[in-house]
């Protein structure tokens, strides 16, 4: 297809798309004029009922915890797919690859950064239902802390955490624990994932009922799933490097 034909097809399509987009945007409710009952109901109900001060987290991990369970298993399935495609059969010796960061400055500040990022990750998971955060954000932050460990030191340091013996059980535990919290409510004679613990004191870790457990389960699952994903991809990069060094 010549450039001219392509442009001739592209330009009307672009104009049509832009018109539709503009039409849709003009019809949107104004900022702050949300139309729908649930946001207002949850906004009023969540803190008195569950004593969680972060209503967003109460929505995702409590009132709509079932949706989040589904999302968690989407991630689980996606990572399983990556592992099936990329995980090498024979155990290579790629952990012997020597790629230590050359600069002392990078190493020192990198290690400081690792502790800071991991701390932020733990805080996001632990306090997700009190202040902004939650299992997902905290989990990805934890995983990035471990990535920083690779960047600041070496593949060998990363491999201490980033290997399947450590990560696969953690991922399975996180995904399973979420379901177990849900089943506990069933055993107690309530609907699946119903918050069955007492609300506690608002604004503290001792609040939210089941929410902390669900957050930690999701945090572990997300952190491990991300690290498995990175480790499979990193192997693709490191194995040829090791082969060249050998």
């Amino acid at each position, binding site marked *: 297809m010549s450039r001219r034909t392509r442009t001739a097809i592209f330009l009307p399509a672009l104009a049509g798309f832009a018109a539709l987009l503009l039409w849709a945007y003009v019809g949107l409710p104004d900022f702050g004029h949300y139309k729908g009952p649930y946001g207002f109901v949850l906004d009023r109900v969540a803190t008195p009922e569950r004593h969680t001060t972060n209503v967003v987290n109460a929505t995702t991990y409590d009132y709509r915890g079932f949706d989040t369970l589904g999302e968690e298993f989407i991630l689980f399935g996606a990572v399983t797919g990556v592992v099936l495609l990329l995980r090498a059969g024979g155990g290579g010796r790629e952990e012997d690859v020597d790629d230590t960061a050359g600069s002392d400055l990078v190493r020192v500040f990198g290690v400081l950064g690792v502790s800071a990022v991991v701390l932020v990750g733990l805080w996001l998971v632990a306090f997700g239902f009190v202040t902004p955060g*939650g299992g997902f954000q905290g989990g990805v*932050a934890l995983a990035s802390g471990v990535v920083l460990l690779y960047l600041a030191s070496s593949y060998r340091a990363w491999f201490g955490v980033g290997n399947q013996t450590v990560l696969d059980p953690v991922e399975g535990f996180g995904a399973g624990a979420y379901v177990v919290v849900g089943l506990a409510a069933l055993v107690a004679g309530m609907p699946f994932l119903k918050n069955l613990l007492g609300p506690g004191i608002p604004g503290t870790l001792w609040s939210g009922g089941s929410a902390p457990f669900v957050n930690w389960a999701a945090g572990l699952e997300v952190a491990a799933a991300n690290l498995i994903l990175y480790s499979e991809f990193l192997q693709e990069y490191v194995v040829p490097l090791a082969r060249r060094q050998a």
Partner: protein
Amino acid sequence: MILATLVPLQATALAVVALGAPAVVLSRDPLRMIVVNGLYGLALVLLFVVYGAPDVALSMLVVSTVAYPLVVLIAVTRVRGGKR
């Protein structure tokens, strides 16, 4: 009082996002695109913060600056045959 400082901030954030999106699309080199996309993600984080959505901002922050660049970076390396 708060509104007086917030509206210019929101306008600035919107402008940065509006400039950032074409910058991502117009970067031809994949490596440059990864970096520009990370910066664009940070602009979105800023936008979400000034519009009062810290939870969304945190999700955007961790995904756009770590998870996505890392996966794309390694995929690009793999496609290029392991050359740095």
